[in-house]
């Protein structure tokens, strides 16, 4: 069931969405996990999670979910992409060049430089560039939990970076579009604060 007051978590068939939902439950925020484009169209805010390979996002393409998310985002509905969901906001990824990202943010996701092991797994620190709505109350060098093999470029919308071989986009924010490369639902109090900031952010 969804209403205009609900935050919709987009379920496109890959990954375990329980952890994300559980974090919102803990915050006392109503969320619904949905596979329905209609529920996304009426949602107050949208969470686009994602794990694994960029090609997993093909689950958005064949189900009407891609259009529903893009339409809502264009209409101003706040959208938070998490991990692969953040990468989707960009033009695409070298991980699966045949699948298009949303193209809301410029640039492509690329592998890490050969100087570091991949994937990047564990707790790494944020370097906050600008204290945006998402990062309100978050200490500038906070640690967050990552697990990913590809990285998004640093762009104008980047409000925090993390260094692994080179700096990449850790947090992006542009009008109603938000993204985090790390897993806020697994990043202890810092992550919960970021999710709460997203819930409370007004446009």
């Amino acid at each position, binding site marked *: 069931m969804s209403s205009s007051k609900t935050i919709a978590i987009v379920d496109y068939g890959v990954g375990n969405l329980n952890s994300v939902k559980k974090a919102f439950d803990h915050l006392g925020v109503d969320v619904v996990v949905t596979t329905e484009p209609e529920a996304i169209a009426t949602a107050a805010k949208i969470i686009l999670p994602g794990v*694994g390979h960029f090609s997993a996002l093909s689950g958005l393409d064949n189900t009407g979910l891609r259009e529903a998310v893009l339409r809502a985002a264009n209409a101003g509905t706040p959208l938070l992409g998490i991990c692969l969901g953040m990468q989707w906001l960009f033009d695409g990824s070298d991980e699966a060049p045949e699948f298009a990202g949303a193209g809301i943010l410029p640039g492509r996701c690329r592998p890490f430089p050969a100087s570091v092991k991949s994937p990047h797994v564990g707790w790494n620190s944020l370097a906050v560039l600008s204290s945006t709505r998402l990062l309100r109350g978050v200490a500038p060098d906070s640690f967050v*939990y990552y697990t990913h093999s590809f990285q998004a470029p640093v762009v104008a919308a980047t409000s925090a970076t993390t260094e692994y071989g080179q700096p990449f986009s850790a947090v992006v924010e542009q009008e109603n579009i938000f993204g985090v490369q790390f897993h806020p639902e697994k*990043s202890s109090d810092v992550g919960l604060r970021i999710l709460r900031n997203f819930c409370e952010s007004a446009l």
Partner: protein
Amino acid sequence: MLTKRIIACLDVDNGRVVKGVQFVNLRDAGDPADCALAHAAAGADEIVLLDITATSGNRNTMLDVVSCTARDLFIPFTVGGGIRELSDAAAVFDAGADKIAINSAAVKDPSLITKIAARFGSQAVVVAIDARRRERESEKSYDKTFEVYVAGGRTATGRDALVWAREAAECGAGEILLTSMDRDGTQAGFDCELVRTIADAVSIPVIASGGAGSPQHFIDVFDINKGRADAALAASIFHFGLENIAQLKSELRAANVPVRWPC
């Protein structure tokens, strides 16, 4: 900077913690959820819960434990023990785990790794490897190999740990949880040679387990010239005079090991 992870491990038998990092002032030291939250509050970077229940008839008890433990835990949470097929893994994820650990079942059928990774992502699949030295410690290091054991360390497989770790990674494992059977329970230190052998062979993270007896052992296993581990499992730090993981991390910080701090 990417930090070295300290992972608290809870061995759970019939729904109760029977071995694990112990806590003073814990309301119920045997309750997995209480233990996990206490570790998280004290700075554990992750929680691993291993179901060591001998009988297979208690899956529902275990799923209840996973569910209760996951409810208020917001750091990565891995569950291992008794996962034989995709549906077992799915049930554990449904109950709230972020990652599953598989051991014997993966050795028996490596495609299980691929199946779980395809559905839940590689980051959710930890392959646990129990390894024992084939050669005696006095021999030259490049002659040393390590053999994989299954069934809780009871059955030798004849397989080489390095070869198996590589295959597991190729099948889609996201991390390797590597236990030295020679060192497990000895408090003589991690087997840095084993850890480094595997860490150099795969690009996925290697979690060292078995033998921790002092903070120096953690410093060694993370050392680029020694163990090269990405993470280490803390099973019983209480035994070497520390009250919690924050104290361990404090010692690691003093030795310039990058750790998440404050935690």
